[in-house]
């Protein structure tokens, strides 16, 4: 990863509007609610989380936590999960994304995929933590399959990405 200076990025592109982000998250929610075959649920990534990772990577500023929190609550309602479970997971995702982004630029697609996979894994881990804490649900490595699928999706759908070119050395 290359050294990155935030002032340079400011001159390259602007952050997307809140409306666009909200619309994209609604689309992610819609994608999550589509009637997939039962066999897919084990592998289906959380599209809202994937979009959060995307915006977290793309945005110069940090992603608005309130919006992620609201999306998480809606996911909880839609999935009839414990209220706040997805909100907690998305907050964890943004934290990990923030840590990973740090002062480095994530330039190529493979790095972005790793970034997305780690962010999704963080969200899954946080969600499992809530389940484990309140419902004592056993956690296993298989629960992280959607993160791997999310990584693959990231690689296969380059059109969704807008790679940030390094502004300087």
């Amino acid at each position, binding site marked *: 990863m290359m050294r990155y200076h935030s002032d340079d990025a400011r001159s390259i592109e602007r952050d997307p509007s809140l409306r666009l982000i909200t619309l994209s998250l609604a689309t992610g929610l819609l994608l999550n609610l*589509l009637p997939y075959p039962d066999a897919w649920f084990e592998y289906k990534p959380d599209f809202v989380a994937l979009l959060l990772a995307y915006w977290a990577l793309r945005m110069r500023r940090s992603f608005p936590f309130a919006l992620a929190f609201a999306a998480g609550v*809606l996911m909880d309602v*839609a999935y009839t999960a414990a*209220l*706040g*479970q997805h*909100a907690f997971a998305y*907050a964890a995702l943004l934290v990990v994304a*923030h840590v990973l982004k740090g002062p480095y630029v994530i330039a190529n697609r493979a790095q972005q995929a790793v970034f997305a996979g780690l962010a999704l894994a963080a969200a899954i881990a946080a969600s499992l933590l809530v389940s484990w804490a*309140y419902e004592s649900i056993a956690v296993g490595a298989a629960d992280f399959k959607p993160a791997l699928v999310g990584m693959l999706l990231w690689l296969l759908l380059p059109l969704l990405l807008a790679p940030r070119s390094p502004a300087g050395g």
Partner: protein
Amino acid sequence: MDFSDDGRKKMVWLRAAAAMLLAWGLTYADHRIGDATSKVRSSLAAVVLRPIRFAAELPTTAWSTTSGYFQSREELIESRQKIAEELLRQRSRQQLVDAVERENAILRSLINARLRHQPDAAIAEILNTASLPFLSRIVIGKGSSEGLAVGQGLFTDEGVIGQLTRVDGDTSQALLLTDKRFWVATRRRSDGLLVLLQGDGGGRMRLRFVPADVSLLPGDLLETAEGQQAFPAGIPVAAIAETWQPDGVPFQEGVAKPVASVRQQTAVLIHSGGGDEDAVPLPVEPSGAVPSSLKVDVLP
């Protein structure tokens, strides 16, 4: 890294911590006091999630509707085919029932005719006919094994049909009354006037040797005369169709239409008498002479 970035990062961490704490608190509250959060859930589900869920279910709804349409169409086609096949079977059965009813009616009429004319007359099934369109022979399903003999007359409830000309073991062949070789002595039903009839080979019968001074009118019904071996007396044979008087001939000419039709029959009655070779109708003589087998004085 300047202070403003550092401050911004601190703010991010603060927000992250706040969001995570709030979320955890929310999960705790939802777990402990689920009733309080259920209203939030229902409100969010009704207001925010409903349109999204509706949009998400559109593909399923559209698919089920479309597949339901095609499924119903296929079911309808299959049902229609089944109904058509069932209809075909029903029609076939109906035709069978109709045929049985017709045969039953014919048999009833034959039984009535037998009771009326000759109680000991046998009933035989018509197997096939020959020489269409003007039938001249039929084959019946009884023969010498049933006691039949050449010369026995055939009749139905309507009237005379013909006469046996060949008898085999289980089948017999009969000459119809419209064949030129068929002769029969009749009498007019109204007054007993004797009239000799011969088949004309074309579906009707000719008047033979009827004196010119005898008055025969169209519609006069002719029935079998007494004294014949082949038929009992009183069975309708034909009705006068027309008569005319040729010049210079002592006999008048005329044609009569047989009253019985073999086309509608599936069975016939067989006269119990007349079973001897002498009664066999002979080929018509070139001179038009009456066959010797006709043992009745047909002329007044």
